[in-house]
């Protein structure tokens, strides 16, 4: 019996009559988290964690029909029991557990196992079938702790106080994680691009502790930012927005920065290895901890990870074609 199948609209649960992170318009959509490849507009009804509500409304519109749930709260949908469990990816991110008869399936969404001061830690949910991401599903990807990487970021910022330090990173999740980790090293305010600002404010509203931030939109264009740290989304790199900074030092924080070639062709002066996705050990350990005998691998290195799980752990593991994207493209 299959609890979840892939349809044109997305991951579908027939017994429950709902979709998970659908990529087309559907009636009922359960959302693992608010990144744009998982939360798309057009559903008649959304169900997601309470804590992700602010960001979802910001991204999909205030008027969406959204039902919020607590982590662990059980919902009866059709013939299934559904619950959301922390995925440790970003604020409010969840794995979705679906139970029907004696079967338990878990859809991981995106997740990580490293500590992150801005979201609840990943919870291992025992299941029969685990549908996992594999963005960084190669053993070359192994992360240091976020604290260690942010220590390097802090040192980089402090190494040149005569220039502005521009750090590019995802505006939702990564930027706030950096602002959270940096509390351990600094108490200076950090400037943020407008896109980062909006999301950071939502994090603050739910009580996440981060360094004080000032939006660059509030500053006069002539402001110098000498010795300041500025966070901005990668799309702002080499944009007109960036022209206001005189000879900034630039860096990019992403899991892809683990590989020299990727680092060099990006054109940033520095690359910091920081990801909100599980690294290789994180993926392999999580899968084995769930006890699942069947594993479907969605986006990223789905073929590699499936083959490895099959050969090494003798699991029934298969790639599953979806439209999820993980941590952008290289």
């Amino acid at each position, binding site marked *: 019996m299959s609890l979840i199948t892939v349809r044109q609209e997305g991951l579908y649960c027939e017994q429950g009559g709902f979709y998970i992170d659908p990529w087309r318009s559907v009636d009922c959509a359960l959302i693992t988290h608010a990144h744009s490849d998982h939360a798309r507009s057009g559903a008649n009804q959304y169900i997601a964690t309470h804590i992700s509500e602010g960001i979802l409304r910001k991204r999909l519109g205030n008027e969406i029909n959204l039902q919020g749930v607590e982590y662990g709260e059980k919902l009866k949908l059709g013939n299934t029991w559904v619950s959301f469990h922390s995925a440790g990816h970003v604020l409010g991110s969840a794995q979705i557990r679906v139970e029907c008869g004696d079967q338990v399936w878990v859809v991981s969404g995106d997740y990580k196992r490293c500590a992150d001061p801005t979201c609840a830690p990943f919870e291992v949910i025992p299941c029969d079938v685990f549908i996992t991401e594999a963005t960084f599903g190669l053993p*070359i990807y192994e992360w240091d702790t976020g604290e260690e990487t942010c220590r390097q970021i802090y040192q980089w910022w402090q190494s040149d106080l005569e220039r502005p330090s521009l750090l590019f990173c995802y505006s939702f999740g990564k930027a706030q994680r950096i602002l959270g980790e940096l509390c351990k090293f600094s108490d200076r305010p950090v400037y943020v691009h407008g896109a980062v600002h909006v999301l950071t404010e939502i994090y603050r509203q739910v009580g996440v502790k981060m360094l004080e931030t000032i939006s660059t939109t509030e500053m006069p264009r002539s402001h110098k930012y000498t010795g300041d740290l500025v966070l901005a989304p990668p799309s702002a790199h080499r944009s007109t927005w960036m022209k206001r900074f005189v000879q900034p030092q630039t860096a990019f924080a992403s899991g892809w920065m683990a*590989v020299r070639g990727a680092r060099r062709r990006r054109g940033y*002066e520095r690359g910091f290895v920081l990801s909100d996705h599980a690294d290789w050990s994180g993926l392999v350990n999580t899968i084995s901890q769930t006890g699942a005998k069947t594993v479907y691998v969605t986006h990223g290195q789905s073929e590699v990870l499936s*083959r490895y799980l099959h050969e090494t752990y003798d699991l029934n593991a298969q790639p599953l074609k979806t439209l999820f994207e993980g941590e952008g493209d290289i």
Partner: protein
Amino acid sequence: MKRFSQLFQQVDATTSTNEKVRALRQYFYDEIPENAVWAIYLFLGKTRKRLITSRVLRDVFLQISNIPEWLFEDCYAHVGDSAETIALLLRHSPLEAQEKVDRPLHEWMEKVIPQVKAVQSEGELRDLVVSWWASLEDTEIFVLNKILTGAFRVGVSEKLLVKALSAEYNLAESVLAHRLMGDFEPSIGFYRQLIQTDNEEIAPSQPYPFFLASPLDEDRFQEEEPARWQAEWKWDGMRAQIIKRADEVFIWSRGEDLITQQFPELVEGFQLLPNGHVVDGEILCWEGDRPMNFNALQKRLGRKSVTKKLLAENPVHFVAYDLLEHNSQDIREKPLLERRNLLVELLTSLSTSLTTVSTSLSFSSFADLQELRERSRQQGAEGLVIKAKDSPYLVGRKRGYWWKYKVNPMSLDAVLIYAQAGTGKRANLFTDYTFALWHNGELVSFAKAYSGLDNDEINELDKWIRRHTIEKFGPVRSVEPIQVFEIGFEGITESKRHKSGISVRFPRILRWRKDKPVEEIDTLQTAFELLKTIEQSN
């Protein structure tokens, strides 16, 4: 090794020239000459001999690791570098804890690493390499792997190195660049010579750094007074320096290879030159009054021994451009016209037909130059080189003194049929493309190209390739024949080795023709017609 790999990390972590120079300076300041000279040697990529191939290193790794071979291959495809892939993966294969010893760089290079030459068996080699890995930290392992596989070229150009040394030791960059040319022993003696302020005797074989022309900036040039400039044909041969010192002739290529052996007739001819002279010019295979196809020269370079037959079938000629040393005096600072006059005088006295001074073409306006350029193919040249008559002979590529004005390349519209991921900076990005032309209703591959697209286009095409793959053959993917490109090239010749029957020289992408459907690309027939016209004009 710790200090050296720290330096490596510093220069590798940043793309900022100032940061790199700062790190290098600090290193030269901190380090003893024994280590510093090896650092220079390594950064310059002088260790050309591979001590261990990437394949052997990989096999050693696979023997001690629980990573299956296919997974290693997938990782390698992502990283694009064996040395780095192994270093990254070793984090999963805890080696027997060993005391970490920090041996100095020179000890590694002179005593430790040379041990590989003495090993008797594969097992011994494996144990040796594994014991090294076990004694090092992550980055050090990467650095060691790079040294072992003989490809230690990492983010530090010669220019940067020279800049750092120049700042640290207060020496002119041109002096340092000169002292670093050619072969040298990474010894303390060499290092002392390198950084000493007074100019001592240099090795007789030592070449000068080449000065290179930049692509012509037409707008800027049109404002120039034509009388200030001199024009010559730009030959498609091999740029070389011929040195006569201490009764011996040395020939150097621009890639700093000593190629004396390949050209015995030039050695014989230039033997007559008085000692203390260095001539810059171009080696070409020559027939009558014009150069032969570049393939002819390639044959001369490819052979270990130069046979009589080869000498007779592919005779060479040296077109002299410049004189850098005259009667043991470095005359690079003198104006070009003066150097040229001395060159003419010198070579006339040789009275040999093996060499001629490059002809100075007459022109009185920019329009004349454009016209000359149009005629260059008929001369067997690939355009013009335009030099300021008062220009000194500088180092590297400095804009404003020498310009190259190349003919527009020949071009054909072709469709992308295969793609392969690049290596290094382009790892995991499909950047090696194969293009095809129509031939009797089928697509026949005719050229490979790696360059010509900008980064945005590369990324766009990469995504497209991933979504339109038909089949995967190892690292190569065949893709739906949809994307059309205008492929430019410098020359076209018949070739039996290629399925299409032709081979093109320096193919590159000129334009992505999104407007053009695959039905309208060129045919092999068109390519052969192009070939015919070229041959006729010859």
